[in-house]
């Protein structure tokens, strides 16, 4: 079972667009959820929606969360605190750039890599320049 991804953005459209990119590179092999916007639909993040997205996934293969900006971390952590301990231990929060981390993680997950390897690939995106 592949590692699943949850993409958390302040903007629903940014989350969905990044999910589209990640789905294209994963070729359907990776479950990917997009979560964006505050509860009232404005820009922001919503811990409850993040929790719902994680709960909607089978966590047996592991779940990697990516966030767009540091201010999404608090909502992500609030969501993680609500998870049952046996689920919580199969979820990681990546310290990675949102778009690059999501597509790199999607490819890594699509080849069947374990959660820690997918996390490492996402976080390696921090050091990867666009201009080489």
């Amino acid at each position: 079972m592949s590692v699943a991804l949850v993409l958390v953005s302040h903007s629903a459209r940014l989350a969905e667009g990044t999910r589209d990119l990640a789905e294209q590179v994963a070729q359907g092999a990776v479950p990917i959820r997009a979560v964006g916007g505050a509860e009232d639909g404005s820009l922001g993040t919503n811990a409850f929606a993040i929790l719902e997205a994680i709960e909607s996934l089978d966590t047996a293969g592991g779940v990697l969360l990516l966030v767009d900006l540091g201010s999404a971390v608090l909502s992500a952590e609030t969501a993680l605190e609500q998870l049952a301990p046996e689920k919580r231990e199969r979820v990681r929060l990546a310290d990675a750039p949102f778009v690059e981390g999501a597509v790199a993680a999607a490819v890594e997950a699509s080849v069947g890599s374990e959660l820690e390897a997918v996390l490492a690939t996402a976080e390696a995106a921090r050091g990867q320049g666009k201009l080489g």
Partner: protein
Amino acid sequence: MSSEGEASAEITVENDHGLHLRPAADFVRTAARYRSRIQVANLTRGDSRQANARSLLEVTALGIDRGHSIRLSATGEDAEDAVKALTELIRSNFGA
């Protein structure tokens, strides 16, 4: 039995968009089937950068466009098979 085989190939990328996102992902997935360390260089751009064939971001940052020549170099027990598989993927224009 050689545990440290080496293989390399030079090939021109002919598909419409070069090694952009989706073809690059196919390339990385193919490379992931092998244990060898595989590196890619863009010969047309003429710089000395080597990308790890297992890294989507490194491969896409090489800026491999249609008509560019690349060099694949692999080291490891299945180096020859890895280079062959990647060469075939490129020759087939990524199955297009």
